[in-house]
C-alpha cells in the first residue's frame, strides 16, 4: 500500500510551486503600497506600514510582472486545490485529515511528548493529532485566501462579497493575514517533516513508506531519534511492514 495516492502526491507538489509563486508575487504586489490605510485615512491594525518586504522574498521583478504571475497562478492554485479536495473526499483520505473527537486532548499529548513531559509517543494512525489539525486547516486557510483574493480583485463587480468582508481595505488585510497564516503553517510543516519524519518525504514522491521508521516507531521528537539505529531493522525483517 502506498502511503499517499498519486493524486495526493502530484497535487501536493503542484501546490508547493503554485503557492510559492503566489506568496512571492503577492509580496511584490504588496510592496507597491506596503500599507492598508485609505489615502487620507488611518488603519488600526498594521504596525509595519510603509516598510517594504525585502525584495529577495518577492517574485515577479516589478508590479506588472508580479500581477501577471499572481493572476495566472491563482487558477492553478484553485484548480489544483479543487482536484485535491474532491479526490480526498471521494477516495476517503479525508478520514485521516479531519480532526477527530478528542483532537485537542491528543494534540496536547503530542505537545507534552515533544517537550519531553511525556515519554512515549502517543499512539496515532497515519498522522498525529497536530498534523491533523495542520493539514485540516491548510485547505481552510487556502479557501480563505482565495475568497479574500476575489474580493480585492473585483471590489466593484463582486461588491457584496467585498462588503461582507468589511470593504476593500479590510478584505485586503484579511487576504494578507491568510497569507501570513499559510506561511506560518507551511514553515512549521516543513520544519517538522525534516526534523521528525524525513522518511515521509519519499512517501510524498513515490508513495513508499517504511512503517518501521515512522515517528511513532522511533519515538521521534524534533531532531531526536532522527536516524534509525541498525537494530531497528530486525534481522528477520519482522519490524517492517
Amino acid at each position, binding site marked *: 500500500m502506498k502511503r499517499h495516492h498519486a493524486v495526493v502526491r502530484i497535487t501536493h507538489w503542484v501546490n508547493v510551486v503554485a503557492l*510559492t*509563486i503566489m506568496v512571492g508575487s503577492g509580496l511584490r*504586489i*504588496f510592496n*507597491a*503600497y506596503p*500599507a492598508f490605510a*485609505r*489615502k*487620507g*485615512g488611518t488603519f488600526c491594525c498594521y504596525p509595519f506600514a510603509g516598510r517594504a518586504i525585502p525584495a*529577495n*522574498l*518577492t*517574485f*515577479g*521583478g*516589478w*508590479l*506588472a*510582472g508580479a*500581477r*501577471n*504571475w499572481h*493572476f*495566472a497562478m491563482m*487558477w492553478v492554485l484553485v484548480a489544483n486545490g479543487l482536484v485535491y479536495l474532491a479526490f480526498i473526499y471521494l477516495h476517503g483520505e479525508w478520514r485521516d485529515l479531519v480532526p*477527530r473527537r*478528542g483532537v485537542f*486532548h*491528543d494534540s496536547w*499529548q503530542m505537545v507534552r511528548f515533544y517537550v519531553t513531559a511525556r515519554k512515549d*509517543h502517543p*499512539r*496515532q*494512525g497515519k498522522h498525529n493529532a497536530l498534523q491533523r489539525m495542520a493539514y485540516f486547516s491548510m485547505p481552510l486557510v487556502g479557501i480563505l485566501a482565495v475568497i479574500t483574493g476575489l474580493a480585492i480583485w*473585483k*471590489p*466593484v*463587480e*463582486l*461588491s457584496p462579497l467585498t462588503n461582507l468582508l468589511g*470593504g*476593500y481595505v479590510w478584505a*485586503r488585510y484579511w487576504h494578507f493575514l491568510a497569507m501570513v497564516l499559510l506561511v506560518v503553517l507551511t514553515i512549521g510543516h516543513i520544519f517538522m517533516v*525534516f526534523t521528525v519524519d*524525513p522518511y515521509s518525504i519519499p512517501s510524498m514522491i513515490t508513495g513508499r513508506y517504511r512503517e*518501521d521508521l515512522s515517528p*511513532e516507531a*522511533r*519515538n521521534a521528537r524534533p*531532531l*531526536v*531519534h*532522527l*536516524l*534509525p*539505529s541498525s537494530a*531497528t531493522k*530486525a534481522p528477520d525483517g519482522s519490524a517492517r511492514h
Partner: protein
Amino acid sequence: MAPRDTDHPPVTRAMRATRGHAAEQAGIDRRRFLAAASGTFGALLLAACNSEGPKSAQSLLEFAEAKNETVERALLRHTSMDVPRASAKIAGQHFPAYYVSDSVPIWDESTRGLWRLKVDGMVKRPLELSLADLASLPRIGYRLDHFCVEGWTAVATRTGVRLADIAKLAGAQPGAQYVDFASFDDDYHESWDIDSAMHPQTLVVYAQDGHYLNPSWGAPARIYSPVKLGYKNTKYLTRISFLPARNGGYWSDRGYEWYGGV
C-alpha cells in the same frame, strides 16, 4: 491515553529498545543531511527571488491574461455600482497627483488655443466640446472609490457627464466596440472595451470634491470610472475615439493588464 487506531501496528519492544542509540549515531549524518537539504532549498530560492521568472513563461502569462479578460468581461454589470464605505473619508488634499510628463501638465492657451475635447472615430457627429459645453450637459456626481493598481484606494466626489450621454450625443455606431482616451500628458492614452465605457459610473469628470479639477488631478477634464483601475483612467483628456479595435495604452503596452477591470 487509550489507543485510537486499533488497526495500527503496535510499536515492538525491539524498536523501543533501540531508541537510545539512534540520536547519538545520527549526529554527523543528520547535520550533513540538513545542510544538503537547506542548501538545495536556498539555491532554488535565490535563483527565483526577485526575478521576473523564466522568459519561456511569458506566453503562458499572456494566455492567462486573455482568459482573465474573458472572465472580467463576463463579470461586468452595468447594475453593479461602486458605493464607498459610509465611514470612508474623502481623501481631499491627500489624493495622489500622478502624470507621466516631467512636470504637471498644464494646458497653455497662449500656445495651444482654447482646450477642446474631441469626440471622433466611429460616430455620426464628431464633436469638439469646450469646458462650458461639458458643464451644460446633464451633470452627474458620485462619491467614488479610486482603486489604484498599487493597492491603495482613495475616495473623492467626481462630477461630470456620463460617457454614455456623450456617446449618444455623438451618435456612436454599433461597430465601435472600443474607446480610446488620449491626453496632453505626453503620449498617455488608454483604450477600453465599450461595455466598461458605457457603465453609468463612467464619467468625463471636470470637478473633484466640488471644485473644477486642478492641474495635478487632471484639469481640465479626465475620464473616471470605478470599474477600471486608476491607470486606465486617462487624465488631461483631449480626445475620445470610438474604435472598431483596441488600441493598447500607455501602461497596457508596458506590461500591465490591458483590461484592468475592478
